[in-house]
């Protein structure tokens, strides 16, 4: 129980950032013939924007207070590049729990044992992922760990002496919720909290040679859902498209503006 026996006055922090290699399309959407999934050939993988914001926030906190920041993901070999990017940004270590990052419950379960082993003071997750967008993994992970959680956080002030974090959360309509949370805790981080630092070529090259700690998932359990079929829905409505060169498009737009604004 590292966080219980850590001596008072020691300022070093231990931070865990849960990141996901998200899929995006590098070619037009294609669905497998049995409608079970998206054709993997048209997908490419990269770091999730929200997780990069979480990573930056954790790195800043580590740089300020000293200590260690560890990256963890649940994924396959397609996730390794994302972990190496985080190592190049300055993470101390990276852990890959082997598994298909499907539903948020399965991901939270896979990450639980990493967190139990690392015993961080704070766990940062991206508030959502750009590919599946459940925005739920952080909250579930906190519950499985018995920790409190603050969702959609835009500022963090960590007081390691009082074992507290004061955070700001962004609610709908631009309302900011100020909250005080006991630590250890899970914070899900909104973009805009900080601009993720670049990993320069040298750092990226160096990260290639670092070891990623690959673990097997320990816990088993049912998924939160399973996918029955997927389809590429042609939107019910589609804009009337204006063709031609820029001058022609502008002219048509000016006409539309005149009638619609009158």
């Amino acid at each position, binding site marked *: 129980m590292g966080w219980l026996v850590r001596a008072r006055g020691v300022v070093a922090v231990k931070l865990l950032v849960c990141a996901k290699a998200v899929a995006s399309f590098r070619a037009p959407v294609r669905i497998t013939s049995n409608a079970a999934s998206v054709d993997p050939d048209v997908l490419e993988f990269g770091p999730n924007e929200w997780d990069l914001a979480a990573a930056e926030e954790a790195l800043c906190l580590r740089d300020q207070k000293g200590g260690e920041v560890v990256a963890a993901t649940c994924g396959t070999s397609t996730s390794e590049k994302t972990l190496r990017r985080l190592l190049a940004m300055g993470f101390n270590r990276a852990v890959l729990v082997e598994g298909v990052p499907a539903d948020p419950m399965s991901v939270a379960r896979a990450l639980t044992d990493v967190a139990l082993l690392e015993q961080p003071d704070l766990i940062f997750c991206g508030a959502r992922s750009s590919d599946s967008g459940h925005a739920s993994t952080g909250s579930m992970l906190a519950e499985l760990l018995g920790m*409190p*959680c603050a969702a959609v956080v835009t500022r963090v002030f960590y007081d390691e002496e009082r074992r507290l974090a004061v955070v700001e959360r962004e609610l709908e309509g631009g309302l900011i919720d100020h909250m005080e949370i006991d630590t250890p805790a899970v914070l899900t981080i909104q973009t805009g909290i900080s601009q993720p630092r670049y990993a320069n070529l040298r750092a990226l090259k160096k990260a290639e040679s670092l070891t990623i700690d690959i673990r097997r998932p320990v816990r088993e359990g049912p998924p939160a859902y399973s996918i029955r079929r*997927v389809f590429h829905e042609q*939107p019910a409505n589609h804009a009337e498209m204006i063709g031609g060169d820029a001058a022609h*498009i502008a002219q048509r737009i000016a006409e539309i503006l005149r009638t*619609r604004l009158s």
Partner: protein
Amino acid sequence: MNVLVVAESLRGAPQGVTRELVTAGSRLGPVTLALLTPDPVRFVPSCQLEGVTEILTVDLPGDFEPDPYSRALKDLIQARQPDLTLVAFTINGIAYAPAVAAALGLGFASDVHGLKLERGNLVATRSFYGSLVTAELEFPPDTPVLLLLRPKAWPPAVLSRNISVTEFVVPRGRSRARHIGFTEASVPGDLDIAEAPFLISIGRAVADAEGVARFQRLAERVGATLSSSRPLVDSGLMPPSRQVGQSGKVVKPKVYFAFGISGAAEHLAGITEAQTILAVNTDPYAPIFSVADYGAVADVFEIAEELEKLY
């Protein structure tokens, strides 16, 4: 199928999305509506909604905190054993409901925008990859399900009357995450984009301060107010008060003219009340084109240049 709907409340008052959740739930079975808020009895009249068979009042202290809400919802689900629990997919919804699903081992999905029963089994529809792919989900057998539903995906339930009200008492406990106060993100004195009749709105394609200045010039020339999607606010190029979307402002202009905005669901939630939407984007598959009235696949700077010549 027995459905438990949790009324969405913000600063102690039920929100409009509650009525949408009731519509979604009542299409599947009788709805029990739980009001989790301080002094909930005062909201009973506005929560007498068609499809609701019982209202449960759960008196929770103060503004939203995850612990009392998740404790209350766990108690409610264990006491009432609903087949399906519905919560709004909002910032506060995601702050506690997934934890409840994890604690009780429920079937779960969020940002759901369609629901149906097929041979008695629940099928939920949600989108992946922005909105490019739609998926139908099914849930583990003989397991209750908790879903977070996307706002504005169902019509609001109409008012009804004479629905029985029961008080549901939950034990108080310590809150590990405590609300301190609220502030507004908007810069005082800045204009309110929610009231502007003509908005030119810029997105990620306008990548720097020079680009923002270029569109500010265009907006002034054509008599529009400049707004933006989230990425430009995140990078500090636009003030938060100018952000359109679920996490920014909901706008209702006569014309909404989007330059280089792809149309994430977060953004589209803010423009549903715009009368006419125009969009210019280099990506022909940008989701914004599925909500726009008029669109053009073109370079935003070229169009700005040509448009300015006409004014």
